[in-house]
Structures are given as C-alpha cells and as structure tokens.
C-alpha cells in the first residue's frame, strides 16, 4: 500500500519553499551588499601615527579617529562607508561608489588642524577656539570672492591678539592661517614661494573686537566649501599615513560580476544536471535542497550584514560543490546498501546513518580551516572565509537534514519499495540475500 499522505506532504513542503523563494528571492538578492570589487569604489589602508610626540595610539584614539572619519565621509555623501580598525594601528576605509579618488583622499587624510600663527610661527589660536560648526563658505561682500568665515568662541581673546599684531611693524603685522602645520614649516620659508603652504596671511592694522575671521585666498567656491566642511568635521586626533590603496571602476566591477554570476550559474547548472542523470530520483531531491541551500545562504549572509566580494561569489559556488558532496556521500551509501540486498527502507536508514559521521568529520575539519582563514586573513580572504563558514553550516542543515526529510517522505510512503531503478541501481546488481 502506498501511503499517499506522505507524498502529498512532500509536495506541500516543496510548494511552500518554492513560493517562499519566488516571493522573497528579489528582495533578498537586492539586499546583498556588494563589495568594492563588484560595485566599484575606493579603499585605503592607513597607518595611524601620533600627531604629537609622546601621544599614544590606543583603542580610544583609534575609535575617535574612526568617528572623525565617519563624519568626513558623510560630507562626500557615501551612504555606507566601511571603516574598520585593523590590528594595533591600522584603519581601513572602504568607500563604495566613490569615483573621485583624489577628493576622497583629501577629505579622509587632511588633518584639518587649524592654527592661526604670527610670522614667527607661534600659535595664537587653534581649532579649539572655533565654535561648533563655526566654519562656513561664503563670498566676500566687496571683492565678490569666495572666502571661508570662521566664528570664534571669544571676541576678547581675538581682540587681544590682533591688538598685539597690529602694533608690529609693516610686513610683520600678519595673521597667518595654517591648515596642518607640520614641524619644519615656517612662514619665512613659505612666503617666498609662489604657492605657499599656509592658507592666508592677512595684515592687521587695528585691533579687531569681533568673533568673525575671514580667510581670503585664491579659492574657488568648491574649495571654500571643502575647507568649511573639513574644519567643521573636526581635526583628526592622529596622523594618517596611506600605506595601501586600491580602486575599482564600477564598469570593470560590473562586467566582472556579470561574468562571475554567469560562470557560477553555468557551473551550478552542470552540477544539477549531473546529479539528476547519475542519481535519478535522489538527484532531483538534491537539486531541490541545493536550491533551498543557495537561497538560505544569501538570507543568512544578508542577516550578518556581510559584504559580497568576487572571492565570496566563488566561495558560494564552491559551497554548492561541498553541499553536493554531502548528498553524493549519502546516496552512494544508500546505493551500496540496496546492492547488498537490503530493502529500500532499511537501505535508506542505514545509508543515512553511516554517511552522517563521515560528512560530520569532513565538514568540521573544513570548518577549522575556514575559521583559521577568518582569524588570520585580511579583508578579501576574510570575506571568503565568512562565506565558506556560512556555506558549511547551511549545507549541514539542507544537504544533510533537508535531504533526509524529503527523501524520507518518499521512502516511508513505500512508493519506492520496488523501484531500485529510481536510485540508479539495476536489478542485476542487487545481491540476493
């Protein structure tokens, strides 16, 4: 007697998954955040060095730096920048979708340490004298030139400074505004150059009791906007040295991704075909569980907010291969048991049980390798390892349990009892007990 109920249940489960996948496939696929290599963008690795001698680089200063970097990135308009601390003194910044590398570099690494000095390079005022969001881009009312205006905290302090400077002889009565003054820089040197490093040097003729300072120079409107933004974002607490950078054009990434997706689908298609041709009915079950597997991997991947990279896609395809291996091990075992003369039901039971230990040991060791890769690897190797770990765990769920439940429904329905051919076993190969 064939138990039709089990077969009906099988089709119900399939229908449930099929409609679930059909409904969610699009949002899930759209949710996958693509790595730099896939959507194009810019990546820089910085080594963090103390701004002043004696400063220490520790977790706090690294965190403060990433916060400052985040604010700066916001001014470029990158929605989801990836800023990571690596090791003791490294910060990796990934800006997906950014095409203008130079602006990005400037915005990220400019120290934005504002100082106002006299001609002898003594600091009169610095960034801490600026009010919150005190810098803005504007236009000089008379000369109609783009300028940056600064608002200071204390009008009296500025009055005192300007009074002192205005008393100096002509040529020395200058208020020099510097951005990122470095040791060794000097006004005396720079003022001889055509394009001096300081931003402006205005002569002061009378004490100015005001909170507003104008920075004049040969600026374009864009430059003034940039300056204002970077001054408002605040100075970096540390110095950033670029030690590595890479950038991928979006078109290059897109082409590479389409190629990889095509290659991946082709590979998976061939695997499906082979499984059905070689293992017949269980092969069809394998195709179903593998489809569910692929879908679930993407769901888990999204849930972890991981970023898909080219090696990640390759790991996904490879993961399909490993899930296939679990099916092959099980089906080979079942075939062996059928050939040894066991009934389909007991062959299925024994085959599933014996193959489980093998799959378990094999997967755990691969998991160990993937874990080591994740722990010691850097960005792209890590992305690969994450994908591999997810793949192994999900394949355990689908290729081992899922496959067993689905095939079990058919076996227990007794429909397959007299049909070893559905497992790819010929009657002549079965040993009579």
């Amino acid at each position, binding site marked *: 007697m064939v138990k039709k109920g089990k077969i009906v249940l099988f089709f119900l489960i399939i229908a449930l998954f099929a409609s679930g996948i059909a409904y969610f496939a699009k949002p899930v696929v759209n949710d996958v955040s693509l790595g730099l290599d896939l959507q194009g963008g810019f990546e820089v690795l910085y080594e963090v060095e103390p701004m002043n001698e004696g400063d220490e680089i520790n977790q706090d200063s690294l965190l403060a730096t990433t916060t400052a970097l985040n604010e700066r990135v916001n001014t470029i308009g990158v929605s989801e920048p990836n800023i990571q601390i690596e090791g003791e003194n490294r910060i990796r910044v990934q800006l997906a979708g950014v095409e203008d*590398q130079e602006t990005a570099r400037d915005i990220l690494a400019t120290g934005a340490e504002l100082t106002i000095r006299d001609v002898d390079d003594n600091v009169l005022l610095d960034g801490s004298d600026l009010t919150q969001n005190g810098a803005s881009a504007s236009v000089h009312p008379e000369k109609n030139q783009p300028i940056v205006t600064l608002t200071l905290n204390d009008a009296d302090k500025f009055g005192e400074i300007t009074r002192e400077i205005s008393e100096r002889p002509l040529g020395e009565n200058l208020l020099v505004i510097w951005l990122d003054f470095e040791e060794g820089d000097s006004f005396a040197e720079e003022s001889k150059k055509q394009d001096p490093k300081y931003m402006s040097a205005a002569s002061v003729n009378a004490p100015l009791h005001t909170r507003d300072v104008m920075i004049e120079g040969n600026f374009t409107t864009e430059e003034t906007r940039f300056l204002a933004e970077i001054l408002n974002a605040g100075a970096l607490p540390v110095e950033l040295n670029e030690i590595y950078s890479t950038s*991928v054009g979006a078109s*290059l990434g897109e082409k590479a991704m389409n190629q990889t997706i095509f290659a991946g689908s082709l590979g998976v298609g061939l695997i499906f075909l082979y499984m059905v041709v070689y293992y017949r009915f269980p092969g069809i079950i394998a195709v179903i569980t593998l489809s569910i597997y692929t879908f679930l991997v993407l769901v888990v991947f999204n849930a972890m907010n991981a970023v898909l990279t*080219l090696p990640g896609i390759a790991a996904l395809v490879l993961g399909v*291969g490993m899930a*296939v*291996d679990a099916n092959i091990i099980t089906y080979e075992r079942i075939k062996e048991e059928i050939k040894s003369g066991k009934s389909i039901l007991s062959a299925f039971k024994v085959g599933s049980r014996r193959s489980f230990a093998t799959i378990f040991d094999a997967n755990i060791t691969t998991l160990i*390798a993937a874990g080591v890769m994740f722990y010691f690897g850097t960005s*792209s190797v890590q992305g690969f390892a994450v994908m591999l770990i997810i793949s192994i765990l999900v394949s355990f769920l689908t290729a081992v349990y899922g496959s067993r439940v689905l095939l079990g429904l058919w076996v227990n329905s007794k429909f397959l009892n007299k049909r070893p051919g559905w497992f790819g076993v010929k009657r002549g190969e079965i040993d009579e007990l």
Partner: protein
Amino acid sequence: MSFNPEKWNVDLTKHRKRFFIGSGLSIVLGIVLLLTFGLNLGVDFESGSNVEIQADQTLTQEQLLDDFAAINESYTPNITLGGEQSQSATARFTVELSKDEITTIQTYFQDKYGHSPNVSTVSPLVGQELARNAILSVLIASIGIVIYIGLRFHYLYGVSAVIGLLHDAFIIIALFSLFQVEINVPFIAAVLTVVGYSINDTIVTFDRMRENINKEKEINSFEHLAQIVNKSLLQVLTRSINTVLTVLFAAVALLIFGGEAIRSFSLALVIGLIAGTYSSMFLCAQMWLVWEWKRQKKLKNKPKKTEEEYI
C-alpha cells in the same frame, strides 16, 4: 548509469612506491622551480603601484610606453594588456607613486582616452604581512586538523592527511611558478580552499578505511591490511570521482567564464582539486598503510598488554 569500481580487480596499493617517488620528484622539481623561476608576485605582495588603464580603442604596449614616457621620462612600467580587444591594460610600477604623480597620470589618461585610470599602491609591509599570515594560517590549521583527527581517529591519520594537504598546496604554488601566473590575494583564498577540500576528501577516504578495519577481527599481515585499504579506496572511488567532477564543473566554469579578476583564483582551484583527489587516494592512504603496519609490528613485538589499544 552503472559504475562499480568496488568489483574491479585492481590493486592500487601495489604501486605505492611509484606514487611516493612520483610525488617526491614533483616536490623536488617544484623546489627547483621556485628557486630558479621564483613566483610572479602581484602588486598585493610587492611594493609598487598598479595603474589600470581603460580605453575605448585597442591599446598596444609601445603606445602606452610612449604615453608614460611623455608624462615622465623615468617611467618604464611593466605593461600587461587585457580585454578582448586589448582595451584595458595594467601598468605596474616597482616604485610607489606619490599623490601628485597619480594625479598627473590620471589627468593625462583622462584627457587622452576618456577614462581616468585606477591607481593602487601598496607598501612592502602589507604584502609581507599577507604572505606571512597565509603561511601561518595553513600551519595553524594543520595543527588544528591533526589534533581533531587525532581525537576522532588516530594521530597517524592526521599526520598523513596534513602531509597530503601541504603537498596539494605546494603543487599549486609550484605550477604557478612554472607558468609564472600572477599571485594575488584571492590566490591565497584559493590555496586555503584547496587545503579545506583536500582534508575533506581525505577524511571521507579514511573514514571508510577505519570502518572496514573495525570489521576485521585480526590483521595478521601487511597484505591483509593493504587489501583492506585497497577495498576501501575502490569503495569510495565513485564518490570521489563524482564529487571532484561536480566541484570541477563549478571551478572550470569560473576559470573559463569568470573573468580576469578571478582567473588566478579559479586556476589554483582547478589544479588544487585534482591534486587533492590524487593525494587522498594515492598519497595519504598509502602513507598511512606503511606507517600503520610499522606501528602494528612494533605493538606485536612488545609484550601483550597493548593488544586491545587499537582495532
């Protein structure tokens, strides 16, 4: 479809000396290759800068060299052309270009070809660290694997499995040295995957050997042990072939259609998968056979007490 290797009358263990000599020779050859040819390390591993040039027209090496010379006479990068009609090219500098130099180069090519080239730079520090990490990862993973297999099986299985995976990783590196394929970061991921695959494959084989040995009451001779190993190898042969075939479908598809960016990754996978299947059957299992017999002989020569420790 029927394929019954377990009924074949083949003795795979008989030729074990040839396998050992063959693998030994290829490792020696590999070392010689590494010492003479060396590896073609990509920009990820050596300090320098990569300028990726895109154009709408076909590019030639001479033309690009002229372009670079026009920007700065001292520029003599190593140029590789890519794309179906050579519309893209990578110029490799062994020096790190400064920010200003990058801007000049980008402006020049933007004006001339309408695409601003991508410039990546790397300091030797990062490359050295990557290489060191990769080697360290494999070694630590190996120790972890030996411990795990030692607990689940026996340490001799673990040692032969790890020798097998190091062999596979080395074969990939040696072949990359022979063909001078560029080595980049995804390549490391590939080697590590092969390490994972190789161990996976070996465990499945070992698992069957252990099962068959546990079925026997007593193993009296080397021939008996060899016969069990041979039987196990033939039993898992169908599975090994089917698994490597299916994974190869994916890897070969990636190699042929996957694009330039993952070419060295997929090539390493294809080589490694084949080496991994070979080493599980012909290297690891056979090494284990020889060592295990030596161990059993030692146990037998000793006073009785250890009789039940194993089997």
